[in-house]
């Protein structure tokens, strides 16, 4: 067995464990004999039960980070464990804001490569092989670590399905931060959001440049409301400042896999496709019949969003 011991970087907000953490723990159980979590924060006791219920027997926690961004302190704590001979064979980290920071710092501290944006991992004999989508998800690259353990790998959300293991609460152990962070969080701002979260919604309605102008995004919001869906956006209109970055679906933004994804006025740049082509059903509305979005659509309407969307909205509202 190439992987005896696996660590999963746990992330949590307000005592609630992030879905990506539970997804990785579930996958880790398939791959390794011992699955443990590592956590940057002071409230490990609050999440030990959930982590344990998904297969982590232990959670190594740094304690409160004193307002620091987690990259520096958490990576230093993991690197210290490695220096003390307590390194796992594989460290699984989510492709999240903080996850990438920890992975980047850790790869320098351990002088090991980090393989990112993975959607699958397998042990093949002695080789640990990860799978990464490229070219908008049209091709899958399989890459083997040759540098030796510990392997550092970043996974895209929703790559695995979280399932409980029935395990009891993880034992909490403390690990030492050797490099306190120098970047400090002064304030946290929570943007008010109504309706379902983009990456958890059953239906997502996204708008793109084809809407023509910022004010027309309201059509997307109304349609989302009528369908109890989350509104999303292509990178083009996020860059243009029409909607906040948190709306963005794609390579840089959120990965979504809803039951239904409706793309309105989105051409389907590879950047966008990689974030939504895992949706179970895709509906596209675009006036350009050659738009790449139609190559992934189950239902494609070649037409003007300004004509189709108002009629669709009216039909849904009158039901």
């Amino acid at each position: 067995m190439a992987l005896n011991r696996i660590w999963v970087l746990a992330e949590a907000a307000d005592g609630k464990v992030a879905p990506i953490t539970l997804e990785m723990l579930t996958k880790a159980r398939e791959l390794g004999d011992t699955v443990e979590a590592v956590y940057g924060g002071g409230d490990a006791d609050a999440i030990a039960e959930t982590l344990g219920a998904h297969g982590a027997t232990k959670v190594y926690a740094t304690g409160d980070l004193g307002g620091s961004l987690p990259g520096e302190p958490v990576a230093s704590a993991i690197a210290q464990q490695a220096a003390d001979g307590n390194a796992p064979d594989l460290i699984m980290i989510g492709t999240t804001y903080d996850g990438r920071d920890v992975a980047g710092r850790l790869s320098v501290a351990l002088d090991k490569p980090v393989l990112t944006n993975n959607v699958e991992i397998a042990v093949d004999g002695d080789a640990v092989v990860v799978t990464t989508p490229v070219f908008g998800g049209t091709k899958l690259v399989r890459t083997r670590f040759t540098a030796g353990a510990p392997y550092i790998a970043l996974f895209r959300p929703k790559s695995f399905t979280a399932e409980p293991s029935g395990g009891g609460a993880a034992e909490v152990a403390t690990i030492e931060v050797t490099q306190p962070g120098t970047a400090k969080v002064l304030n946290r701002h929570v943007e008010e959001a109504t309706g379902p979260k983009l990456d958890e919604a059953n239906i997502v309605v996204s708008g793109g440049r084809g809407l023509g102008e910022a004010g027309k995004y309201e059509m997307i919001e109304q349609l989302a409301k009528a369908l109890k869906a989350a509104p999303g956006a292509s990178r083009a209109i996020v860059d243009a400042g029409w909607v906040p970055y948190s709306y963005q679906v794609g390579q840089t933004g959120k990965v979504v896999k809803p039951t239904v994804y409706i793309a309105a006025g989105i051409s389907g740049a590879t950047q966008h496709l990689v974030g939504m082509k895992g949706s179970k059903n895709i509906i596209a509305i675009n006036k350009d019949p050659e738009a790449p979005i139609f190559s992934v659509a189950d239902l494609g309407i070649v037409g003007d969003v300004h004509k189709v969307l108002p009629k669709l909205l009216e039909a849904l509202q009158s039901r």
Partner: protein
Amino acid sequence: MNVVVCVKQIPDPAEPGKLEADNTLDRSGKLILDESDSYGVEMGLQLADASGGGEVTLVSMAPNNETSGLRTALAMGAAKAILVSDDALSGAGALDTAKVLAKAIERAEADLVLTATESTDGYTGTIPEQVAALLGQPSVTFAKHVEVADGTVKVQRQTELGYDEVEAPLPAVVSVTAGVVEPRYPSFKGIMAAKSKPVDQLTLADLGIDPTTVGSAGAGQEIVAVDEAPAREAGEIVEDDGEGYAKIVAFLENLKVI
């Protein structure tokens, strides 16, 4: 204040990507400035201006001494560029690239290093943090607003739920999201001036990096295979005849989501 902006020159993402025989991305054609980097360039120019002096230096790693993307950023107003080009860098991973960029950045003596959050082609998204770690500097990633004052950088950092106000002492590395500022279009004057701006072309030897520790020789990773992703089955594509919306309603009804 002097600002370094890391920029990547990439194959035009509007063209279909091609792979080399060793499954690395074919970068032999003309390369352009990664649009994601235009935001960092603009931010750097604005911050250098606001500080009342200083300039923007570009740092890039690219094959074949490619400078066409750098010229675009120089035309926007960057003062000069450092370009690292070396055949041994083919197959470089993110950590290798970060090592090269960090060594090049050290030459520029910057107060602030700006990057994009990730490149459009490789999209690893770890390089800003790796560069910061190699330089021994603080880092703030995913900045959607950046201010510099009194030796510190204040950033609004994107989070899952909104944003954090984050502060770090300079020198520091900050990665900026697309849309953080509106990149200027190069003026004709800028384009002409860019042709004569200095581009310092360096090799690994110039930076004191052992070629066997980076690129395909030292990346610590090896591509095993590249497979076609399972294609989605072709869907029904119809021209809107005024009743297109009804097709959508029927589709949603069939799925029992309405």
